[in-house]
């Protein structure tokens, strides 16, 4: 950094205490309501994101319990068909769009800037905007459900059931616009993460030194950017069909019913990997701390992530094996669906090799990793089964599939996520979660999860279709369903315990210290919780495990200005310093833009003219947002 010019207000000449004060002045979010609404601090926004997502998880869980109550006995009387259909739609939609994707992206919003050693995420105002959009989308869905306007067409909203003729009322429009809200927010976050990872890494963090979690998030973000437009096209076409009478999905006028399925699953299958890859990254991030050695096979791991990302776009048809597509085409998708087992296998074998030569420390996050191994591999195996065309004709749309995707999504994503919450909780709050309660949580969830979902495989083989609000006494499903429902209560108890522990520990947990797990990545190089500016001096990375290899003193860089928000831009490949870039200050414009966009999208549920008139406030808000500021953006 010696090449940089040296005016007065650089950090190089300042001692640590003085530097801290000056950085705080520049980076801290102001207190009070204005600060809360205008903040662009990635940590504050990510915390909100995570908490909101877990609230939606809890809501979705309550719906799941209601459904299980209804199905516990044949001819259940708790929910009628109308409410039940809304319940499973809102449960699925909520878990996919309001919990799983946002919570994974939120973890990345919090951790990626810290892991790559920068002071804020790229496009912080876009980040603030994305949270507001997400929040509104969630409130829209749940508000609608509470006033009996909840969508009742399943989370994949097949036409014609969701189309203008059979999707009666505004329920489907609300679903489709909820998709728009959450997709806007997901796309925004994906763009931020890509740019943060590619351009804001600490000097020296070349591509082969990026932590695996960051790699996973990079791949995930690219999947989001490539896959989400498909569902936005689909949901927009659906709204157009419903609202202005277009014929995208009307066979009589040259549309196609299956077009919806193609568009939806072209997004829907990568969606699974959008949820799964971050979880894989979390495992790779946590595992080294608990076996005391780096993950075996960095390059194969990265290649497996990228390979999964690419292959994930080649499998969407395996959701449509029973629609009567040409056999040869279906066989191709069988092959590609099974091929994705290979990169997943590579990662699992690399982790096994890591554990084999490591000395495991059985802390709570590690227990969740073990639970992941047990359950996710079952989910992967059943995934190979549903990828086979002939087998899928028996398994498709039966409870077997319900079991399969819960094994993949809960076993493959939620278990690592909960482990990750235990692991990074000290980073988020400065306090540890309870180890003792954590063991109970892990054990309870593991046992209850398998009790709840394993019998569903069998129910599916015994002919129980998905999405039925009841079944008859003469079907042989009563006993297993009762067992499943009782286990579901146990599962809910596990989650409740987790929530209580998290809430308690946030205030009364044991103080953690900067690096409680002795981990190697950069987010542990700053205090817990990190200051608003993340790092007083940007670290200089010299290996893939900087905190393990650098000894006591992590080398740092200097030369950034301290009188304004500034961060370091580096090259894509070798992370060589390129420029100093100013980072935006707090602003209300993202909120105004979100409000204007909300008015437009909500209005468009009722009348297409809302798009025309609503674009005016959106334009005003965007002009205000992008009005050229006084300061020069970059300095090389």
């Amino acid at each position, binding site marked *: 950094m010696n090449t940089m010019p040296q005016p007065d207000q650089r950090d190089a000449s300042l001692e640590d205490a003085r530097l801290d004060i000056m950085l705080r002045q520049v980076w801290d979010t102001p207190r009070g309501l204005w600060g809360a609404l205008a903040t662009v601090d990635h940590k504050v926004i990510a915390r909100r994101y995570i908490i909101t997502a877990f609230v939606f998880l809890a809501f979705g869980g309550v719906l799941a319990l209601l459904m299980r109550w209804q199905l516990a006995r044949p001819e259940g009387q708790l929910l009628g*068909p*109308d409410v039940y*259909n809304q319940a499973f739609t809102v449960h699925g939609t909520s878990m996919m769009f309001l919990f799983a994707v946002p919570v994974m992206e939120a973890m990345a919003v919090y951790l990626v800037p810290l892991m790559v050693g920068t002071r804020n995420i790229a496009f912080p105002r876009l980040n603030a905007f994305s949270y507001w959009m997400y929040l509104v989308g969630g409130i829209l869905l749940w508000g609608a459900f509470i006033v009996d306007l909840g969508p*009742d*067409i399943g989370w994949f909203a*097949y036409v014609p*059931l969701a189309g203008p003729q*059979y999707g009666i009322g505004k329920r489907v429009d609300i679903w489709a616009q909820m998709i728009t809200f959450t997709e806007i927010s997901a796309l925004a976050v994906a763009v931020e993460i890509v740019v943060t990872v590619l351009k804001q890494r600490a000097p020296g963090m070349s591509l082969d030194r990026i932590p695996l979690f960051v790699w996973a998030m990079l791949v995930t973000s690219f999947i989001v950017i490539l896959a989400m437009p498909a569902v936005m096209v689909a949901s927009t076409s659906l709204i157009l069909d419903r609202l202005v009478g277009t014929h995208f999905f009307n*066979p*009589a006028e040259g549309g196609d*019913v*299956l077009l919806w399925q193609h568009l939806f699953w072209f997004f829907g299958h990568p969606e699974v990997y959008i949820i799964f890859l971050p979880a894989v990254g979390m495992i790779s991030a946590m595992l080294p701390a608990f076996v005391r050695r780096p993950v075996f*096979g960095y390059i194969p791991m990265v290649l497996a992530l990228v390979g999964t990302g690419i292959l994930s776009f080649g499998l969407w048809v395996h959701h449509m094996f*029973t*629609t*009567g597509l040409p*056999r040869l085409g279906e*066989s191709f998708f*069988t092959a590609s669906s*099974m091929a994705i*087992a*290979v990169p997943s*296998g*590579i990662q*699992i*074998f690399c982790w*096994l*090799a890591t*554990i*084999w*030569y490591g*000395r495991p420390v059985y802390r709570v996050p590690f227990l969740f990793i*073990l639970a992941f*191994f047990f359950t996710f*591999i079952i989910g992967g*195996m*059943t995934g*190979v*089964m549903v990828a*086979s*065309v*002939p*087998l*899928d*004709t*028996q398994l498709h*749309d039966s409870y077997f599939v319900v079991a399969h995707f819960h094994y993949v999504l809960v076993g493959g994503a939620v278990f690592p996520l909960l482990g990750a919450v235990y692991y990074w909780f000290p980073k988020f709050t400065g306090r540890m979660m309870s180890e003792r309660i954590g063991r109970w949580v892990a054990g309870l969830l593991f046992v209850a999860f398998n009790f709840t979902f394993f*019998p569903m495989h*069998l129910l599916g*083989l*015994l*002919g129980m*279709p998905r*999405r039925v*609000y*009841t*079944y008859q006494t*003469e*079907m*042989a499903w009563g006993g297993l369903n009762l067992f499943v429902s009782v286990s579901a209560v146990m599962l809910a108890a596990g989650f409740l315990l987790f929530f209580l522990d998290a809430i308690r520990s946030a205030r009364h947990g044991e103080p953690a210290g900067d690096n409680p797990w002795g981990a190697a990545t950069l987010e542990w190089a700053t205090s817990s919780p990190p200051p608003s500016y993340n790092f007083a001096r940007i670290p200089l990375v010299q290996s893939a495990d900087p905190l393990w290899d650098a000894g006591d003193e992590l080398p740092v860089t200097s030369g950034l200005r301290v009188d304004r928000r500034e961060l370091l831009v580096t090259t894509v490949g070798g992370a060589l310093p390129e420029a100093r870039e100013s980072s935006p200050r707090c602003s209300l414009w993202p909120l105004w833009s979100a409000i204007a966009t909300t008015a437009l999208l909500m209005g468009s549920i009722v009348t297409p003219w809302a798009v025309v008139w609503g674009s005016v406030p959106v334009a005003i808000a965007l002009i205000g947002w992008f009005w050229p500021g006084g300061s020069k953006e970059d300095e090389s």
Partner: protein
Amino acid sequence: MRRRILLVSAALTACSGCSGWQSALDPQGPAAASLDRLLLGFVLVLGGIWLCVMLVLAAGLWRRAAATPGTARRRSAWAVGGACAATVLVVSGLTLASYLASRAAPLGQDEPLVIRVRGLQWWWEVVYPGADGQDLVTANEIHIPVGRPVRIELSAADVIHSFWVPNLAGKQDMIPGRDNVLTFTAWEAGTYRGQCAEFCGMQHARMAFLIVAESQESFDRWRAAQEAEAAAPAGEEEARGRQVFEQKPCGACHTIRGTEARGTTGPDLTHIASRQYLAAGVLPMTRGALAAWTADPQTIKPGNNMPLVPLTAAELQAVSAWLASLR
């Protein structure tokens, strides 16, 4: 996975009592049997793999000896590489197996019996095309001869449905604007239950049908009986029932051949009492069930398209007597 095999076999034994009802684990035809074999193969192979991975994991957690970094690296690389190669082999093998299973579409030498099935919200219209354009229309119960291939031509009237009789074959969707076909054969006489497998709206859960496989002779007898018009009322009560049926809204939706009821919106009721179930698998066919259903269909199957038609007790008695006589 071993637990699964245990469970599967336990369920199989438990289920032998209710054999033939609605289960993929109790195949009654070549199509379902080949799927059942494929399923068993997949479960054994994949379960074995899962078990191996779990054993390696357990061993990895158990062992304490740490090798020197160099050898550890080399050995791990070999092990991981070998495991990946094995994965590729297994996956290719399974792909090939499923390709072969889907190619071996079991079609006998016999001319298949063609049946047209149309899915509606929430019942099944069944049509047996006749030689002279005289189609036999019935609903919710499909009779087939044993041992002869059956070719079901699937279509949908409103939304997507899916035709699934797990004991006989895998499912096939019924999609508006598309024609799908499902061919299968039943080995043994019996009654097999099927159910709609694609979510189709409010009463998706109550959209079942029966397949009755019987010998060619009894199938022919059944078909001849079904082709006949409805029998004349046997007694005074039945005659009154028929009158009520024709005068009240019933006839606007239902057809009973041989009477003035010619509606086509609802299922054909010409021989309703010969079917085993009422309202797409909701109630077993009895006179009481017919009365209950006619009196209040919206409580029994909320949201279905049959309205609550106000009838007096006497009218209800008469209508149910008439319907129960339509064998």
